[in-house]
């Protein structure tokens, strides 16, 4: 059936069924997702926060790592597009019975699903899944590799608040070595022309990260003096036990974002955090709740970005 076609509705070349990372996307593709997300933002403001776009589609969240907010955000995004969702998490799945990821994937595929959203503690697990099955695969975080939707959300929020990405000075502070959010931020921001610095003790800076196009800095004061955005990453307490830094107290003293440390930042700096926050560790409560903070905007925007990603990937047609 052909509707009287509007030329503006002609298909854009969105051919990807999988979104495994921002590293593999072009600048144009990233911008296209952000533009589409812009259109989806309004849906969540309606009295009926639901559109029938993905009616009849089935979307599975396959989470091998506990995460309430990311899973919920994806699930709500899918539901607002009228897709059916089901959730498999490691505690309930057969993973504990020793089933391999490949077998789990094949089983899910046999139930005729359209998109699988996977969170896994090991880098590359989504790639393994995407190689094995025909449904679209969206990476919701794999080990220390990437968390592409979080990266998109952060960039979307920066663009919303600052009006542009090109030339924006973004400082990422925290456990860069183990952070997938840092990597997705870096890839996406660099492709769109932002200037990115990473700040952490040397023990939490991975080897040769400069080759990803970022500046490495070990002093907050120096890094944030001309920052437009400070993206603060969660510090896991286990890192202290593994010997990456002496104590949470000292980490907070040297790298925590406090009202005092922000004194050297520009007056209109944005504070972001992918959550969940360790208040008083990497970020003080009064800063998280303060006027610079756009942390809750990130959460709201998360829905729009994930709706856009689901809409685009589920319309990408047959497997390559």
């Amino acid at each position, binding site marked *: *059936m052909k*509707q*009287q076609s*509007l030329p*503006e*509705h*002609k*298909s*854009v*070349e*969105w*051919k990807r069924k999988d979104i495994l990372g921002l590293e593999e996307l072009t600048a144009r593709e990233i911008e296209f997702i952000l533009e*589409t997300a*812009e*259109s*989806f933002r*309004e*849906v969540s403001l*309606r*009295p*009926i926060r*639901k*559109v*029938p*776009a*993905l009616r*009849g*589609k089935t979307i599975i969240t396959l989470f091998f790592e506990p995460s309430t907010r990311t899973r919920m955000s994806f699930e709500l995004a899918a539901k607002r*597009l009228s897709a059916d969702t089901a959730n498999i998490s490691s505690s309930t799945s057969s993973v504990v019975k020793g089933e391999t990821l490949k077998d789990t994937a094949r089983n899910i595929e046999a139930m005729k699903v359209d998109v699988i959203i996977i969170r896994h503690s090991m880098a590359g697990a989504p790639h393994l899944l995407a190689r094995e099955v025909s449904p679209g695969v969206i990476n919701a975080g794999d080990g220390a590799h990437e968390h592409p939707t979080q990266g998109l959300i952060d960039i979307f929020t920066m663009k919303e608040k600052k009006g542009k990405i090109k030339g924006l000075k973004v400082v990422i502070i925290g456990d860069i070595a183990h952070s997938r959010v840092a990597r997705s931020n870096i890839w996406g921001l660099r492709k769109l022309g932002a200037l990115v610095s990473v700040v952490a003790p040397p023990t939490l800076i991975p080897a040769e990260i400069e080759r990803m196009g970022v500046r490495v800095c070990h002093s907050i004061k120096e890094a944030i003096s001309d920052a437009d955005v400070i993206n603060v990453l969660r510090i896991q307490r286990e890192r202290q036990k593994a010997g990456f830094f002496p104590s949470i107290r000292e980490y907070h003293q040297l790298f925590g974002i406090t009202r005092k440390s922000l004194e050297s930042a520009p007056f209109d700096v944005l504070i972001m955090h992918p959550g969940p926050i360790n208040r008083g560790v990497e970020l003080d409560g009064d800063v998280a709740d303060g006027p610079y903070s756009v942390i809750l905007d990130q959460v709201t925007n998360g829905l729009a970005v994930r709706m*856009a990603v689901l*809409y*685009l990937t*589920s*319309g*990408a*047609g*047959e497997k390559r």
Partner: protein
Amino acid sequence: MIKKRLRIMGEIEIEKALRHLSHMIMRDVSHEELALIGIRTRGEHLATRIKKIISETSSFPIPMGILDITLYRDDLTMIAPHPIVRKTEIPFDITKKAIVLIDDVLFTGRTVRAALDALIDLGRPRCIRLAVLVDRGSRELPIQADYTGKKTVISATEMIEVKLKETDGYDETAIVTRA
């Protein structure tokens, strides 16, 4: 491939048709309740023009919005890749309004069906009327326009093409035949 192109409306005819539509709308709908909603993309420009014509004689502020029906299309499962989604911008509460939905061409009726679903999700208007510039027949759903600029019955191999200054630089409506 376009084989043949037959012009049926020029700038003057389109202007006349819009004035006719505006007149009929003003006659039927109470000005306090009236709100215009154009369907992206050409319906949006037609709605803007109609609003301007009505404002010449009416001092009531007329709320206007733009509806993107992409997410309500009934053929999404058949289209790959999915069409671009644009913003729906309706900056007023449509509940209890008399909505006039505006589009350029009425053909199968599926776009209007999608628009009706979208509107119902946004609130509960008192009524919804449909105004189109051209009705070309060949309906696939039981949907009719309340106000029609021009009626023409053409075959399945023919298409109506609407050009507007806002998007194309000139105003014209033509029947084109595909080879």
